């Protein structure tokens, strides 16, 4: 695909909304399910994620195309670590409550599978501009889910919003645990799918096809991602 056909708006609609990385492709679940327990936590995670994905995708497209894959993967982790470490160091030095609340989940952002999968399946096969747009679109989709899950869990789990108490709501501890996070993601995924079925019926069929274990057993790799055809299908459907 040439650069001329790339539109950021379209990529946000497809990569961020219709094929949301968390709700549709089920990647990078760990931070969303376990660590996004408040608005501030989610903001920190979303910020770290966005910066690391943009840098990884742009660098992968720019200079890593000819490297062996096993070497590229370790470079993504080094880049992520370079972004996570200063944030972690700053929060720890200032004894921020976010640092205590995120626990080991902040350092684990360095190992987020999302960055590796996206850079490998998309960035190394496309131009810098396309990769940059893809990183922006995916970050918006991922961060939106992170923030939404964080806000819902803070309200339901702690009876607060952005640290302020909400009257008449007592916290339900379960919402702050990983199973609570997974349950909320499941409900959001169903709501998202219902909207896609209503507004984009053709896309909804593709999404359902993508998430079938039996299919992926026959053709490994299509289970989580088939980015190669992503824009071809996009053009057909819009």
């Amino acid at each position, binding site marked *: 695909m040439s650069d001329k056909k790339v539109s950021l708006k379209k990529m946000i609609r497809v990569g961020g909304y219709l094929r949301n990385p968390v*709700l*549709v492709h*089920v990647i*990078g679940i*760990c931070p969303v*399910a*376990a660590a996004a327990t408040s608005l501030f936590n989610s903001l920190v995670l979303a910020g770290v994620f966005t910066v690391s994905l943009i840098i990884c995708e742009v660098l992968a497209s720019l200079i890593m195309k000819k490297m*062996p*894959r*096993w*070497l590229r993967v*370790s470079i*993504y*982790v080094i880049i992520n*670590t370079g972004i*996570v*470490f200063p944030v*972690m160091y700053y929060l*720890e030095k200032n004894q921020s409550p976010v640092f205590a609340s995120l626990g*080991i989940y902040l*350092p*684990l952002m*360095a*190992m*987020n*599978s*999302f960055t*590796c999968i996206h850079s490998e399946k998309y960035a190394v096969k496309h131009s810098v501009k396309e990769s940059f747009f893809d990183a922006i679109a995916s970050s918006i989709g991922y961060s939106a889910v992170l923030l939404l899950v964080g806000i819902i869990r803070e309200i339901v789990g702690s009876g607060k919003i952005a640290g302020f108490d909400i009257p008449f709501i*007592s*916290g*339900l*501890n*379960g919402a702050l*645990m*990983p*199973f*609570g*996070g*997974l*349950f909320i993601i*499941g*409900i959001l*995924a*169903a*709501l998202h*799918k*219902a909207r896609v*079925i209503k507004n984009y019926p053709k896309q909804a069929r593709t*999404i*359902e096809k*993508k*998430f*079938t*274990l*039996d299919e*992926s*057993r026959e053709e*490994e790799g299509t*289970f*989580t991602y088939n980015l190669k055809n992503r824009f071809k299908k996009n053009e057909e459907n819009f």
Partner: protein
Amino acid sequence: MSSFFDMMSAALYAIVVQNLIFSGGYGISEAVRMAAKPRRLASAAGMIVWFSTITSVICRLLDFNEKVASQNSSIHFLIFVGVLIFVYLITCIFTVILLRPNKKLMSNFGIAALNTLVLAIPLINYRSAMTLWESIGTGFGSGIAFVLASLLIGAGFTKLSKEKRIPKAFRGAPVMFIYVAMLSLTFMGISGSGVFA
């Protein structure tokens, strides 16, 4: 003998009492992905056991050094990532030289080594001040926990995908999330956590 029992109890703890995938959410995306590829599950689990055990042992040994032990969490994180990347690269280089592997095997190395579960093990060991034997146990147990999680997810989702009574909006990923949430709740129950504040 007590060291052996320390190791085994740490492994059992990581598998059952506090299954790291379900109760901590570590490596859950990889477990879902592997549930779709049962043929590659055994090799992926073996690799996870290798990387997590070797990394946690090296990290624990490094912590015996006073200079390393006195560092804060951020520096420890940096050291642990460094060790993990070192182990990964050494494994890859030796495999490339000795076995001349295919692309799939090498890509499996990446998935198995560089995921949240493998880095979580040394971080948990450090925070819980585990002994060397317990570190080996959690490293080994995490690989088994990964297999258990992938099998449970795969078996459950195969049945759910055949169920026609599930509303259309819930089919596919949404029902899978809710199913994994219920599995997670089960394991939280085993560990004795309270759901209500």
